[in-house]
């Protein structure tokens, strides 16, 4: 297949085969004997818009469903999901974006499940938490009714059609229609006990989101009562007023992911959510790690000067942040000393979870954790899968993995 390079020049590249593309990852995984290590990827993606023909019929409201399906029809000219503009594919440099449609799969098994097997097997990943891609912008939808309908339809599709086709290797945290607290509660009550649901996820690309609003307390309580995890998944939003001065995608991307987690984490901590729901694991996803030490220092500093504004807190903001969990990707490895300090500050050995973010352009392989020179063997096993094993109750896939979980004090049973 030809890709377009500079000045319209065509460059011939082979059709995409994920196993072939990732054959070096497979070699690295074999060299490190990852088969013996339970590896859980807490943030991976698919492109749900490729499955809208299956997803949209699950919408409940007939009028909104007709609008959405009409917009998706060949003659339709509408968009179902708020779009994010940008250049994730780097002008075709990251070839799996333009070549994605060329990859062949077999039979009727869900395409995303087959592709998932290929990249998980190549990386040595045992389980992945499957998240959508375009739906990470659902919080920008102007209609809260449509936001609910899209989240509802996706939740039904992913739990009824997608996950059952993955042979138990993929799980998910269901995207909540956060503009609709009643709808959130209904989704927790409906989907919270379904197989493959490890928790619920809030897309944190939202201009106005008060995570501390009283309307959400019953939602958090329902998640906590079920022993599930609440995740905040960040993303870029170049269209935001905040980023209007960014003239490069790099700038909006680097800042956007960090910013939305910084914003909502600040509100979460300052309003004492950790005091109110101490048993609910909270996980911050896909903002890297460099933002966490900054925010810890910043909030602790202000808290010491203005404690009267957050009287519910019984310890410093950074202590509450150390109680929460963080996904590793995209891990900033440019300054190893700074990264080591970050790991210390967040108690990474118990609070960090490996994430690949595959197939997105800045994915991380498991060896980004495994090869860190300052990390203990215990820390490597915990971060790659032991901590996720405890959070999401994912069983080891072979005896060696089980023995390693036992050895490092992570095993909670099959």
């Amino acid at each position: 297949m030809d890709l377009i390079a500079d000045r319209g020049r065509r460059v011939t590249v082979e059709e995409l085969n994920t196993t072939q593309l990732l054959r070096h990852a497979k070699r690295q995984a074999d060299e490190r004997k990852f088969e013996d290590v339970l590896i859980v990827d807490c943030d991976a993606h698919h492109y749900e818009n490729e499955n809208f023909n299956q997803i949209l019929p699950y919408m409940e409201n007939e009028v909104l469903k007709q609008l959405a399906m009409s917009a998706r029809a060949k003659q339709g000219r509408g968009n179902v999901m708020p779009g994010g503009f940008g250049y994730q594919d780097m002008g075709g440099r990251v070839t799996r974006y333009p070549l994605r449609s060329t990859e062949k799969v077999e039979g009727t098994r869900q395409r995303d499940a087959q592709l998932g097997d290929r990249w998980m097997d190549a990386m040595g990943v045992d389980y992945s938490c499957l998240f959508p891609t375009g739906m990470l912008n659902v919080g920008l939808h102007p209609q809260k009714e449509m936001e609910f309908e899209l989240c509802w339809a996706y939740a039904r599709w992913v739990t009824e059609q997608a996950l059952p086709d993955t042979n138990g290797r993929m799980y998910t945290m269901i995207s909540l229609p956060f503009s609709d607290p009643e709808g959130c509660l209904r989704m927790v009550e409906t989907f919270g006990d379904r197989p493959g649901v490890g928790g619920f996820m809030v897309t944190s690309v939202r201009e106005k989101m008060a995570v501390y609003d009283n309307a959400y307390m019953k939602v958090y309580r329902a998640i906590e009562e079920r022993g599930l995890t609440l995740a905040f998944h960040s993303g870029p939003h170049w269209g935001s007023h905040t980023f209007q001065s960014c003239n490069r995608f790099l700038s909006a991307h680097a800042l956007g992911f960090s910013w939305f987690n910084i914003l909502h984490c600040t509100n979460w901590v300052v309003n004492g959510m950790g005091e109110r729901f101490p048993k609910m694991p909270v996980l911050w996803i896909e903002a890297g790690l460099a933002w966490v030490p900054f925010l810890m220092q910043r909030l602790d500093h202000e808290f010491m000067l203005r404690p009267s504004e957050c009287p519910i807190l019984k310890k410093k903001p950074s202590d509450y942040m150390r109680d929460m969990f963080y996904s590793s990707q995209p891990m900033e490895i440019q300054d190893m000393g700074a990264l080591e300090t970050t790991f210390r500050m967040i108690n990474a050995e118990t609070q960090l979870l490996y994430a690949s973010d595959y197939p997105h352009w800045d994915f991380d392989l498991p060896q980004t954790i495994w090869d860190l020179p300052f990390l203990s063997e215990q820390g490597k096993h915990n971060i790659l899968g032991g901590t996720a094993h405890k959070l999401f109750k994912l069983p080891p896939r072979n005896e060696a993995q089980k023995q390693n979980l036992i050895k490092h004090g992570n095993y909670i049973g099959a």
Partner: protein
Amino acid sequence: MAEQFVGKSSEFKDGERQIIQIGKREIGVFRHEGEFYAYSNICLHQGGPACEGLTIANVEERLRPDKTSMGLFFSDKDMNFVCPWHGYEYDMKTGEHISDRSQKLRKYQVLTKGDDVYVVA
């Protein structure tokens, strides 16, 4: 050091690349503006197939004498090749990462004997 036959020069078109295997080593061989270049196919970042992605002209930002920007342009002379995993971009002629010249792919010598092309590895 052994000489590994790559192919016939007459069949190796300008702008094409071949990936060859020498023992456990993967090497990417490019032909660009009549010259051959050969580099390790292991990306310095996370080990991706560095030589198997897009080749694309270097992007430059040109400034006027008063330091105002004229915008972004494709270079007329500098070509890069890009690792398809994450976009690590290397200078075709040197194998250096274009953002950090201290990071450099291993370069291999390419010999032509008559119409035959060899990599020395």
